[in-house]
């Protein structure tokens, strides 16, 4: 099929931009969170070992759990959002033809 024609279509550009935003936004947030949390532990070890108020659960581990929870949440959002974006952009495009 003619790929160069599709390349010029606004639907394709919107798809590209919308997906890229999710792709690099979520990747950057999670990888950034791992680095900040991981390296932070080296300089604030005592704070990481301190239990959360009113429990015995160390704060550093709780932050790690939070990053894992975010990975799961972002993944679910990504799968749903991309399915929706593709349906919207392709749906429109198919109507045009």
């Amino acid at each position, binding site marked *: 099929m003619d790929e160069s024609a599709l390349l010029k279509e606004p639907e394709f550009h919107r798809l590209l931009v919308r*997906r890229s935003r999710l792709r690099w936004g979520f990747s950057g947030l999670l990888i950034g969170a791992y680095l900040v949390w*991981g390296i932070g532990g080296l300089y604030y070890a005592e704070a990481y070992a301190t239990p959360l108020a009113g429990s015995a659960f160390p704060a550093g581990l709780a932050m790690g759990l939070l990053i894992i929870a975010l990975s799961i949440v972002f993944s679910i959002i990504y799968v749903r959002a991309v399915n929706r974006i593709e349906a919207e952009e392709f749906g429109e495009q198919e109507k045009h033809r």
Partner: protein
Amino acid sequence: MSASGTNLSAIVVFVAFVSLSLFITWWAAKRTHSAGEFYTAGGKITGFQNGLALAGDFMSAATFLGLTGLVFIGGADAMLYTVAITVSWAFILFAFADRMRNLGRYTFADVVAFRLHPERMRVLAAIGTLTVAIPYLIAQMVGAGSLIETLFNIPYLGAVLIVGTLMTVYVVFGGMLATTWVQVTKAALLLAGGTALLFMVFSQFDFSIDALFERAGEVHPRGKGIFLPGVLYNDPISVVSLGLAFICGTAGLPHVLMRFFTVPDAIQARRSIGYAVVIIGYFQVAIMIVGFGAIGLLIGQADYVDNVGRIAGGANMVSIHLSRLVGGDVFFGLIAAVAFATILAVVAGILLSASAAVAHDFYSRVIRKGEISDASEVTVSRWATVCIGAIAIALSLLFKSVNVAVLSTIALAIAASVNFPAIFLALFWSGLTTRGALAGGATGLVVVIVLVVLSPTVWVNVLGNATAIFPYAYPTLFSVAAAFAVTILVSLTDKSARATIDRAAFPAQLVRSEVGERL
């Protein structure tokens, strides 16, 4: 120690698993005729099934047994692995799932060869696959051999032969369909077993997470020091390298990448990795809690841990000991059998990816330039599987005392430094040329091997030198950076005729990678 010795429930569960897996193989063999069926189960696996299989591929014995041991020894630092692993799977979903599925057919080589010089890129991909798959295969089989020796009282030789023969049978006869269903079965077993263990450990603390952590901090020789980070890894470079090893390494594992092609389309590919993130995230959290529970329950039990804190049978035995302590002999047998099943399913997947690299990428596409019938390609794949299986068995018997951790590190680092840069830049950078990809791949491979040899794990622990020339356990920060730098520099200065073709083909690849077969 009484933990060895034959155990009836272990044998029952294990024999049941092997019988079921052989039944699956027989069922799959009747449905596996074409190359597409052999390599990717005809693309008919559903998103949920593939999600379980992907999670199963990653939840090897190393994660199940190794990570609990790591929590036991390293405390809070083990959480670095847990978080890096979960983030890495989410990253694979965001960065790779759509574009890989839309561009590839059987192996990740299809993707890197899409617009670059097909034969040269397939040779690079085949080398990248084999240098990851063979060390990984040997690491798993040697680990399995020793584990089975302790658990079932089967001699090492017999254990390696059982694992090696079964994995070869699954792949030769049942191809990807059998490999996937064996993996799905095992993933379900492992999740059930892990959850049961978590439940029983929790019940020992009256289901109070506070009681569990309080007790761990009271009884561990380092006391509350186990909650301090910086024990296993005490500098930023190690933390970054560890993260890169998992984030780039997992995204460069050939047997994981191959699973993108077993589903019908990009929608199912996304969905399957989404499921994998959820399952792996849950399992990582479960393992961490079980690990801290193990500290509280096992320390002070002379049968399992001696008074200087050494674990009977080594750190990998923590989950196994724990299962016996909280669940008795029947549950212990169950967990032991699940650990064995885990290894079997993982090695089958790796073996299939290695034979696809040899038969599909190297033989069919490079030697025969695609001039080969579908039926003969399947025959070649089956023979390649038998040969690689035999080589893996022989090497595992030869290197019984090899350091399993070193092999796994090398495999993951090569995946991160050879396969990952080539795939990532092929997908996202229009300037990548064939010459750049080849130069970068070669650089990544050489830097990994040199740095691992100079690292503490080989230079000090294996070669017996006093201090390591390269002070970090993981080489990934340097090897990945070197591979990317060389790939980009060589691509930018590449004035060859091929480079013009490579760059000019990017727009067409971009469209295809984003919209797939809908065109």
